């Protein structure tokens, strides 16, 4: 416990110091408050508009979670299918790796053209950005099973399903989670961008409105909320990892 406190204290102190310096700077420098609001101004703006912010935040969180779940589900499913059908894997895996270098987010405007402004194109955008890291990390993990242990299980009579559930999948879990952590951050980012492109609700939508109104204070509020949502989704994944990944992986 004391150890964990010791790890958390320095970064917290750093954040508090930066905020304090920011506050002092805005007060002393006489910079235009509408351009660079002080932390206190930002908090005040958030409190004043809390009802509308809450509504937009809920919409974004909902979109993020639906997209993240769908993206992770697709990624895991595709990885497992490719893993158990080696021919498919040989054909598709290189393409998956290459496609990781393509900014899939660039497809978002096209999806809006095709599917309109509803929730579906937004979910697809998030699925697209989450899918690749999860699929590639899972496939990687599944293929890194220790051959001696595989032989042991097979000689002990394990069938294909047992080999997967008792050895390959648990062995791949640390790798799966590194994919999930990337996907967690990407999913929030995908949600905000798809809301920018066309939506009647969500923090992304709120940002667009505040941009037209030149409300820097409200922009800062939305940025803070986006950061918080990201940290929460990431934190949930990290917590799940601590619960599910036990012992020590043989290789890291």
């Amino acid at each position, binding site marked *: 416990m004391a150890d964990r406190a010791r790890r958390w204290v320095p970064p917290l102190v750093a954040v508090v110091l930066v905020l304090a310096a920011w506050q002092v700077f805005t007060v002393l420098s006489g910079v235009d408050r509408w351009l660079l609001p002080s932390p206190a101004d930002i908090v005040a703006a958030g409190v004043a508009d809390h009802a509308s912010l809450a509504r937009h935040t809920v919409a974004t969180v909902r979109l993020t979670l639906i997209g993240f779940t769908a993206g992770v589900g697709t990624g895991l499913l595709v990885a497992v299918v490719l893993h158990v059908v080696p021919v498919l894997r040989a054909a598709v895996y290189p393409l998956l790796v290459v496609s990781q270098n393509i900014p899939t987010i660039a497809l978002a405007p096209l999806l809006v053209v095709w599917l309109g402004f509803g929730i579906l194109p937004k979910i697809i955008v998030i699925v697209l950005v989450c899918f690749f890291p999860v699929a590639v990390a899972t496939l990687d993990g599944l293929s890194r099973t*220790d051959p001696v242990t595989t032989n042991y299980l097979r*000689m002990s009579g394990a069938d294909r399903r047992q080999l997967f559930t008792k050895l390959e999948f648990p*062995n791949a879990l640390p790798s799966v989670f590194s994919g999930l952590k990337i996907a967690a951050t990407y999913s929030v980012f995908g949600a905000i961008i798809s809301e920018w492109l066309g939506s009647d609700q969500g923090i992304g939508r709120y940002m667009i409105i505040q941009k037209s109104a030149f409300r820097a204070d409200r922009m800062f509020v939305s940025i803070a909320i986006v950061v918080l949502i990201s940290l929460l989704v990431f934190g949930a994944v990290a917590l799940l990892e601590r619960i599910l990944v036990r012992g020590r992986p*043989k290789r890291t």
Partner: protein
Amino acid sequence: MADPSALEIGGVAKSFGSLHVVEDVSLRVGKGEFVSIVGPSGGGKSTLFHIVGGLLTPDRGTVTIDGHDAVGRRGLIGYMPQQPALLPWRTVEDNIVLAREIAGEPRRASRELARRWLARAGLDGFADAYPHTLSGGMQQRASFLRALLSDHEVLLLDEPFSALDAILRTDMHRWLLDIWEENRRSILFITHNVEEALLLSSTVYVLTARPARVLERVEVPFPRPRPDELVDEPEFVRLRRRLTHLLKNDARHAI
């Protein structure tokens, strides 16, 4: 044949592409017998186990377990691989019931059995520990228990003690013999250590360098239980010298 052997291998051969690994190996393990295979490293001993375990199909020859054809059939033996190969995310107890779990045995009974055997292996306090917190010798014992608990008559032990230092190895020999004398399973034991083979077994098969053939079959005459001092007796020293000589000569031919 009234009482079939626990395990019989007849004229087995195996090549990987152009690499001839096993040329012609026949051997027999009677019920409750402790049999060792001695041979140089890289000589095809582990490959022979993979064949007996049904992981590989031999190019030629037969494998018979308890009187039944076992070529290519998996799940008929208890196996301890050359490395402990414990699952790092499972506790020691969950690891040693793995083979029973695969066979579909009820969980409760397996766990009770596991607890009892962990105590016998000096691992009482470690049921809920993860393998990486165990020493090398403890991991080997856990791996052995996993094979023992599989409940198969035939146990295949692949160089279980080769990674241990001499003192620890002597302790493990004592431990293994105690357990074996108590419940007399049929053991086929691989080693490249002649003294270890003579100390533990009733029959020793000396194999050639790759491709493996049986160079000689040696009956070990010493009664059991065998004391630690056995290694200094003239008859033991004579046998050890003879087997070492056989292996050396074969190595010279191979070069």
